[in-house]
C-alpha cells in the first residue's frame, strides 16, 4: 500500500470520527456502528426468525392456558411411517421441497413431514423444534445467570480490591479448577431428570468465571480514572460510582462476553446431552437427537443433518452478533473499509498526485 493511499484513508477515518462525535451519545454511536455491521445484522434477523419459529411451532402451556402451535404434530404423536414415498426404499424421508416445478423440481411445499420421520414414525420437525426450544432455553438461562453472577463478582472484587478481591478471585480459581464438562456431567447425570430448567440453572452457577475475571480487570483500570476521582470528590457513594460511573463504561465488554458465553453454552448443552448427561428422554434436545441418530447417518441422514444445522445456525448467529457488538463497543475500532471509502481514497489520491 502506498503512503498516499494510507494517508487518504487516514483522512477518511478522521472525517468519519468527526461525524461520530458530532452530537451523538455513546449509545447512539454504538447502535450506529452495530447497525453497520452487516454480518451481525443478518444474524440478528436470522436468530429472531429461528426463535420465533421454534417457540411457536408446538403447543405450549403458560399458566395452564393452552396455546396451540402452528405445526400439526407434537413429539408424542406417532403417525404411520409412510412407505413408498421416498426413493431407494427409504422410510420416513423428508417431504419438503424448495425447487420450483418450472425448474424441474416438485414445487415449493412442506409436505406431510418436512424433516422426515424418525425410526418409530415420530414427526422429525416436531422433535427438532422441541430440541431447539430446549437448547435455546438452556443457552439463555446460562447466559443470563453467568452474566449476572460474573458481573457482580467481578465488579465487587475489582472495585474494592484488597482482601475482598483476593477471596473472590481465589473462589473463582476454585470454580475454574473443576472443568466445566466434569461439573456439567456430574450435575446433568444426577439432576438431569429434574428437568431442563434445573440443568440450565446449575450450569449457569458454574459458567461465570471467565466473565468475572474480565469484569474485574476492567473495573481495576476504570476505578483509577479521573472521572471516578471526580465523582468521589463530588461526594458520590460507592454504590453510585459503581452503577452510574464504572458499570456503563464496562458494559461493552460484559455484553460481548455474555454473547460469546452463550454460543459456548449451546455447545456445552449439546455436548452434555450427547454424552447422556444433559437433557434426558423423553425430553429431547438438539444434542440428544444427534446422539440418538448418529448411527443412522448412512441410511437416514436427515435425522442427523437437521439438529446439527440448527445448532450451527444458532451458534453462528450468536457469534456474529457478538463480533458486531465488539466492533460497536470498541472505541479503537476502525470502521471496515467500504467500496465508497475506496472510491473516496482514489479521488483523494488523484487530487494529491495532481498537486
Amino acid at each position: 500500500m502506498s503512503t498516499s493511499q494510507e494517508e487518504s484513508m487516514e483522512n477518511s477515518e478522521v472525517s468519519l470520527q468527526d461525524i461520530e462525535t458530532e452530537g451523538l451519545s455513546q449509545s447512539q454511536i454504538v447502535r450506529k456502528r452495530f447497525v453497520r455491521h452487516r454480518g451481525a445484522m443478518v444474524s440478528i434477523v436470522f436468530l429472531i426468525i429461528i426463535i420465533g419459529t421454534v417457540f411457536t411451532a408446538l403447543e405450549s402451556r403458560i399458566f395452564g392456558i393452552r396455546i396451540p402451535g402452528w405445526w400439526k404434530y407434537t413429539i408424542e404423536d406417532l403417525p404411520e411411517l409412510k412407505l413408498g414415498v421416498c426413493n431407494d426404499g427409504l422410510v420416513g424421508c423428508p417431504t419438503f421441497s424448495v425447487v420450483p416445478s418450472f425448474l424441474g423440481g416438485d414445487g415449493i411445499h412442506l409436505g406431510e413431514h418436512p424433516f422426515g420421520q424418525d425410526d418409530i414414525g415420530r414427526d422429525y420437525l416436531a422433535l427438532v423444534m422441541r430440541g431447539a426450544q430446549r437448547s435455546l432455553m438452556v443457552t439463555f438461562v446460562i447466559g443470563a445467570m453467568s452474566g449476572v453472577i460474573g458481573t457482580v463478582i467481578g465488579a465487587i472484587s475489582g472495585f474494592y480490591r484488597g482482601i475482598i478481591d483476593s477471596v473472590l478471585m481465589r473462589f473463582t480459581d476454585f470454580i475454574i479448577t473443576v472443568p466445566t464438562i466434569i461439573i456439567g456431567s456430574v450435575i446433568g447425570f444426577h439432576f438431569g431428570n429434574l428437568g431442563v430448567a434445573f440443568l440450565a440453572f446449575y450450569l449457569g452457577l458454574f459458567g461465570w468465571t471467565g466473565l468475572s475475571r474480565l469484569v474485574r480487570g476492567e473495573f481495576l483500570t476504570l476505578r483509577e480514572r479521573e472521572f471516578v476521582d471526580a465523582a468521589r470528590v463530588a461526594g458520590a457513594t460507592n454504590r453510585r460510582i459503581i452503577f452510574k460511573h464504572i458499570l456503563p463504561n464496562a458494559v461493552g465488554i460484559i455484553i460481548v462476553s455474555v454473547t460469546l458465553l452463550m454460543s459456548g453454552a449451546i455447545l456445552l448443552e449439546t455436548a452434555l446431552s450427547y454424552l447422556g448427561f444433559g437433557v434426558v428422554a423423553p425430553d429431547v434436545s438438539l444434542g440428544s437427537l444427534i446422539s440418538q441418530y448418529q448411527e443412522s447417518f448412512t441410511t437416514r441422514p436427515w435425522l442427523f443433518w437437521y439438529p446439527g444445522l440448527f445448532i450451527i445456525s444458532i451458534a453462528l448467529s450468536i457469534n456474529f452478533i457478538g463480533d458486531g457488538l465488539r466492533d460497536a463497543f470498541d472505541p479503537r475500532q476502525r470502521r471496515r473499509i467500504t467500496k465508497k471509502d475506496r472510491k473516496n481514497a482514489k479521488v483523494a489520491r488523484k487530487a494529491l498526485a495532481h498537486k
Partner: protein
Amino acid sequence: MEGSRLLAFIMRRLGTLGVILFGSSFLLYNLAALSGDPLADLRISLDPRAKQQVISLTRELQLNIPPPIRYFLWLRGVLGLFVGNLDLGNTRTGESVGTAIASAVPTTVRLVFTASILAMVLGISIGIITALRQYSKFDYAMTFVSFLLFSLPIFWVAVLLKQFMAIEFNNWLSAPTISLKALTAIGVVLSLIVSSVAGATGKKNYTIFGSVFAGTVVTLWTLQKINWFLEPGLGPIFFFIACVGISYGVTQLSVGIANKTALKSSLSMAVVGLILYYPTRKAFTFDKQGLIVVAMAILTITLAVIAALIMAKIDKAAIVRTTVISAFFMGLVRLLDQLMYTWPRFISTDAINYRPVPTVGQANSLLEPGDYWISTLDLLMHLILPTIALTAISFAGYIRFARGTMLEVLNQDYIRTARAKGLSERTVIMRHAFRNTLIPLSTIIVVDFAGIIGGAIITERVFGWKGMGTLFNAAINSFDLNLLMGVFFLTGTLALTANLVADLLYSALDPRIRTGSGA
C-alpha cells in the same frame, strides 16, 4: 532481592493452590457422593449374590462412613504424595485408581498432542497473516471460517469426518481417479486462497491465480496418472527440491534471504540430505527402528550445527539456528517420504486390505507387530480423523487470538519506530511484531496444554479411544467416586499449575509485568 521476591511469590501461589485444590475437591467429592447411590443397581437386583456384593462393596469403599468424613480418608491417601506414597484408592472393580490413570494418560496425550500442536501452529500463522492482511478477502473468509468452527459440535463433525474422510475416501482409493469437475474445484479453491494471501492487486493478482490454478491441476492430474495415490513417494529429486524450498523459506523467515551464509549453510544440508537419501533408506530397514530414527535425528542436528559453524564467520548463533530449523524440517520430509515408501506395503496387508483410514479405535490389533514403519503408519492413520476434528475445533480460537494480539502489537509505537528506522518489512514483522505477539500467546498455550489431559472426553468417545475421557465417563456412570476424584485430582492440579506457570512465564517474558504487585 528480585530472586527472593520471586520465591516468595511462588510459595504464596503454591499455598493458595493447595487451598483451592482442597476446597474444590471437597466440594466435588460431596457433590458427587451425595447425589447418587453407588449401590443402587445392586439393591434392586434379584441376584442372590447381590446382598453379599453390597456388603463387600460397602466395606471396600467405606460407604458406611458419611461422605464429608470419608473425604478426609481419601485426602490422607492423596497427601501420601509428600512421603512418596500416593494412594488414590481403588475403583469399584478393585483396580488401583493410580494404575488406571497411568495407563490412560499416554493414550490421551497421544490423541491430543498432535492436534494441539497443529492447532497452535496453523492457528497462529493464519491469525498473523489475517492481521497483516486486515480487511482483505482472506481476512473476511478466515473470520467466517473461525466463527463456523467455533459453532461446530465436535461429535457432529466427527460423524461427517467418518463418512467423508474415512469411508468415502477408502472407497475412492480403490480406484483413485479425480474427475475433471473435482480437479477444477480444488484448483479454484487453492488458487483463491493463495492469491488472497499474497494480497497482490491487478495484473499480478491474476498471474498468481492463474499459475497456482494451472500448477495444481497439472500436479494432481499427473499424480493420478502415475498412480501416485496408491504408490506415493517423493524420490530423491523431489526430496531435494523440497529441501531447497525449505532452505529458502526458513532462511527468509529466520534471518532474511539477504544473509547468504545462512542460505548456503541451509542449502548444504539439503545436499547432505540428497547424498544420504539412499543410505538412509537402507538404514531404515535394520532392526530397532525406533533407535535408528532417534540416532538419525541427532546426527542430522549435529551435522547442521557443524555445517553452520564451518560456514559462519560472524553472527554464528542466528546461522546455526536457521540451519538447525531447516535440517529439522528436512528430516521430517525424509520421514514422510519413508512413510510414503511403506504405504503400498501397508495398504496391501490383510489387516488393512486397501481401506487405510479407520473410523474408530487407537490401533489395528490384526496387524502383525514387528515392522516399525507399518505400525507407525497404522498409528498415524488412527490419529488422522480425531486430529482433524480436534484441530478444526480448537484452531479457530488461536486464529482470533493471534489476530487480535498481532493487530494490537502492530499499532504500538515501537513498530512505528522500527519502520521509521528503515528496517525491512520482514524484520519488523518477524523480529519486532511476531515476538511480542508470542508473549500473551505463550501463556494461553501453557494453559491449553494442561487442559488437553482431561479435555478430549467427547472425542475419545466418538472415536473409541480409551483415555482419560473414557475413565471419567465410566466413573460418572457407575458412581465410582475414587476414580472420578482421581481424574479430577490430576486435571485440577495440572490446570492450576499451568496457570501459575503462565503467570511466571508472562512476567519472565514481559519485563513490564512485575510478579510482586498483586497476587
